[in-house]
């Protein structure tokens, strides 16, 4: 019976995933090259001799060339981008990755490294006929030091699987995000994924202890140390964290896993206005201190469209804004006391209008589920423009009403949600279908606004294919020039993930 209940919960998710697969197969998104008017660079095209060579390295089964087999690897999960790759390679070892890259570099064949393909900026799918290098079969956990918490795993490990593995050993992965059931650790590192608990466990630049990566020419760069401190020379591992596969392909990762919290509590509250959310955040930081592990917000439209589209339960009634607070601690009694004091105080002050709080794993999961599913809920309506920006907290929500006003009835839903603690807001604009008119109203408008407020045009999603020509809103010319020089040094032929991250000229 226990299983029946668990299944019921899982089905809600699965159904939604299946629905997406169905949608994806019915209508193919427009080709990225046409949609965004991109010109193919001067790379070689894959010949049958190349395919044969790949087969000598990987065998027949790990080289996909059939159209039906290759299509899913060409499309990103939000159905925004579609590439035209003819071949997908599935290496099982670093050696194989090295051999493939060395060959492609010599033949000037472009390569698109791919993990779980859950990226939101089109970075993980090809634009033209790049060879897709999918790391899903590199999914072994290499070692875990239970004393230091240092885990070494291959790049293709699915985040949730690794998290389950370390949880059984009283540790957790330092990052958690909505796509955890599909995304891969290598992709997380390559895109410097943020997620739900960055507030507590920090950025990957802090928790990644070491990286093994393969450069465009096939040379394996071994920086796979598990030390917390290592000041010997340049910190090369950081070049592979967040460079989105343009400087090298991450093949193994050493990551520091924090201790599994013994006491976890989740609260979900209704709040009157955004100003009150900021007050509540300030109060949570001082009352909950070191046990605060997540402070998330969502507006009414984000929650109500998720509840409606995915048929998920909303644990509390209708409010203009919602806040999700999570605590991670080592003592239930101690945490409970703190939390109760915080709740009583803020119920009385009126910052919290109503809400619920629970430490039951099943209920906590249901609440998180609602928050995590906001990202995908809009897809039911049609096309979703997604913006992931960092803003100073006092300006955090300003853009949402502005965009609403700008688009008027052209948008079905304009909603904002995200990580208050990190100053990172996600803005989703749902429209019946992609049109250049709406795109023109949104871009570069959104980026200009963000830039004027001293924010970042990409907080955690990266630059990918969608944003290179907007990167200058967040990065100075001098920085971009150095990035170009690094790219030329590490990948002189430019075969690794072309058309992504860096603009053509700066």
């Amino acid at each position: 019976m226990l299983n029946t209940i668990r299944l019921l919960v899982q089905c809600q998710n699965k159904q939604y995933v299946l629905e997406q697969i169905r949608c994806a197969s019915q209508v193919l998104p427009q080709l990225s090259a046409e949609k965004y008017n991109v010109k193919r660079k001067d790379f070689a095209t894959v010949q049958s001799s190349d395919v044969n060579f790949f087969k000598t390295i990987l065998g027949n089964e790990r080289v996909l060339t059939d159209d039906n087999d290759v299509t899913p690897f060409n499309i990103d999960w939000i159905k925004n981008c579609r590439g035209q790759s003819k071949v997908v390679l599935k290496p099982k070892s670093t050696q194989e990755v090295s051999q493939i890259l060395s060959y492609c570099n010599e033949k000037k064949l472009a390569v698109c490294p791919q993990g779980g393909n859950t990226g939101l900026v089109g970075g993980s799918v090809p634009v033209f006929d790049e060879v897709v290098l999918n790391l899903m079969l590199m999914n072994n956990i290499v070692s875990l030091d239970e004393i230091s918490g240092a885990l070494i795993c291959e790049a293709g490990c699915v985040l949730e699987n690794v998290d389950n593995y370390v949880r059984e050993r009283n540790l957790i992965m330092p990052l958690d995000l909505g796509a955890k059931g599909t995304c891969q650790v290598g992709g997380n590192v390559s895109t410097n994924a943020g997620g739900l608990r960055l507030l507590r466990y920090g950025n990957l630049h802090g928790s990644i202890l070491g990286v093994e990566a393969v450069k465009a020419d096939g040379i394996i760069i071994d920086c796979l140390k598990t030390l917390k401190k290592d000041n010997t020379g340049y910190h090369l591992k950081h070049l592979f964290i967040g460079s989105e596969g343009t400087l090298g392909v991450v093949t193994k990762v050493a990551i520091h896993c924090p201790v599994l919290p013994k006491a976890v509590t989740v609260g979900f509250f209704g709040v009157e206005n955004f100003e009150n959310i900021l007050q509540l955040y300030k109060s949570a930081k001082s009352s909950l201190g070191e046990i605060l592990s997540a402070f998330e917000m969502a507006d009414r439209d984000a929650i109500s469209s998720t509840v409606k589209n995915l048929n998920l339960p909303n644990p509390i009634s209708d409010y203009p804004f919602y806040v999700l607070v999570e605590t991670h601690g080592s003592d239930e009694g101690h945490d409970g006391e703190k939390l109760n004091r915080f709740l009583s105080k803020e119920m009385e002050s009126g910052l919290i209008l109503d809400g619920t709080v629970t430490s039951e794993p099943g209920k906590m999961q249901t609440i998180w589920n609602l928050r995590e599913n906001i990202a995908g809920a809009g897809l039911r309506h049609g096309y979703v423009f997604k913006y992931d920006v960092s803003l100073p907290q006092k300006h955090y929500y300003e853009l949402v009403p502005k965009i609403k006003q700008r688009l008027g009835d052209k948008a079905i839903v304009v909603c904002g949600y995200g990580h208050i603690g990190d100053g990172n807001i996600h803005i989703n604009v749902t429209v019946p279908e992609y049109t250049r008119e709406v795109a023109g109203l949104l871009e570069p408008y959104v980026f200009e606004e963000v830039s004027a407020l001293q924010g970042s045009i990409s907080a955690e999603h990266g630059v990918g294919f969608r944003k290179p020509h907007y990167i200058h809103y967040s990065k100075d010319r001098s920085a971009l020039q150095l990035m170009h020089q690094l790219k030329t040094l590490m990948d002189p032929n430019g075969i690794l993930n072309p058309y992504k991250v860096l603009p053509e000229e700066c």
Partner: protein
Amino acid sequence: MSRVLVGVKRVIDYAVKIRVKPDKSGVVTEGVKHSMNPFDEIAVEEAVRMKEKKLASEVVAVSCGPAQAQETLRTALAMGADRAIHVEVAGAEYETLQPIHVAKILAKLSQDEKADIVIVGKQAIDDDSNQTAQMTAAILDWPQGTFASKVEKSDGGLTVTREIDGGLEVIKTKVPAVISADLRLNEPRYATLPNIMKAKKKPLKKITAKDLGIDLAPRIKVVSVEDPPVRQAGSVLPDVDTLVAKLKEGGHV
């Protein structure tokens, strides 16, 4: 107006991975997150809705178990029960506590508290016994409406829609009666903050089985608890002929 008695059991949370003890005497419960049995949550919700619809005057939650059972009772109180009774059963006695014992306790309390309706979950997700409602009805010699997916008040009694194999059965019972809640009876609410705060001040009485004059001597003995067999890994075969050969080899065709 009637008084409703609701039975709630503290079980390992459904989202937790169950681990069997190495000596196969049971499952590991220490340091494992517990919560209210999901079917009992549905039972509490139904009782509270009866009260909200003025079909019931008072909802009394009952739980049998160790000290932590009071947490489960507080959850029931936060959902809207008026008061709670904790029948303390701890240690070795709790390990061998069975539906027959719980049914006797519920029956005795129903009489002491002058309850008109007893609602429990159809089964607990830990031992899956599905016996407590039926046994309670038998001991009290009350009618029973088990696996309820709908409960309505009808003249002088209740109309209960039951989930049965392949469909629904609608029955009428007199009151007093025993109801067991099935999955589709309702969707339990989340306790709201003000109600969680209020629940801390609601009355919770602690008694023992001995106070009720009930003997908890075990009637059955657990011989062994084992993990379900691990599914064997599949393999990819090159062509249909090999598949057919393999199936023949395994005696499947």
